[in-house]
């Protein structure tokens, strides 16, 4: 149970970064922390105490961890990489236009 609370605490840290911080790069880092917290939670769901890696042979009776959440998390990591690259490229474009990462100064229309 304590592992799941750890994942929730990690998610809360990321949410704090997204809500409180005003630097765009720090907001992106907060989003990444939230994403990794969810990945950690999903990988923990598939964990079995004392389980082997999910490479098993037919006929052998042994405990192994659930491979389905791991495959799901691998896909989620790929998608997270794509969204992070997109967000960072947006941040680069915003910095080119406004010369700042501060979200309070980006509101003004300039063009």
């Amino acid at each position: 149970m304590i592992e799941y609370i750890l994942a929730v605490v990690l998610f809360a840290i990321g949410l704090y970064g997204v809500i409180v911080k005003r630097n765009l790069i720090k907001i992106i880092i907060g989003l990444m922390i939230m994403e990794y917290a969810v990945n950690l939670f999903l990988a923990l769901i598939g964990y079995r105490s004392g389980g082997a890696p999910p490479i098993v042979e037919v006929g052998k009776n042994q405990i192994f961890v659930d491979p389905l959440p791991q495959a799901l998390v691998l896909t989620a990591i790929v998608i997270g990489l794509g969204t992070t690259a997109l967000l960072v490229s947006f941040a680069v474009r915003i910095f080119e236009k406004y010369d700042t990462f501060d979200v309070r100064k980006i509101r003004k229309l300039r063009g």
Partner: protein
Amino acid sequence: MQGMSLIVKKISQIMAPSIFILGMYVVAHGHLTPGGGFAGGVLIAGCFTLLILAYGSSKERSLVFKEKASLIESGGIFLFLFIALLGLIQGTLFFVNIFSRSNPGVPGALFSSGIIPLCNIAIGVEVAAALFAIFITFAIMRFGEKL
């Protein structure tokens, strides 16, 4: 983007071949051990990223790198699609493991399980080139180049 100090350059020069070999190992053993095409591709892309960060790169050379990375990425996707289409060429379904009869899956054997290692190699090429293209695009953005 200019390079870093001599210590960083020398350590990168020593470490980069090991990282590259580890990435190739993870790609080749994708059907036997944890990892596979994506994880190995990330390692290979990390090797090239490390070298570019340590030694630096001019704007023109970065543009050439980006073109080549895009080309290799497209080649990886095409290879994956070709492997998938082999089933249709043979007269069965899309993505059928056509070598499963002649090359069945043996636990622990490297040359086994039909087209799965070939798919892993295609994915590894694609992911390595795509991640390197993302990195080099951000490096080109630092020169103020409009893409």
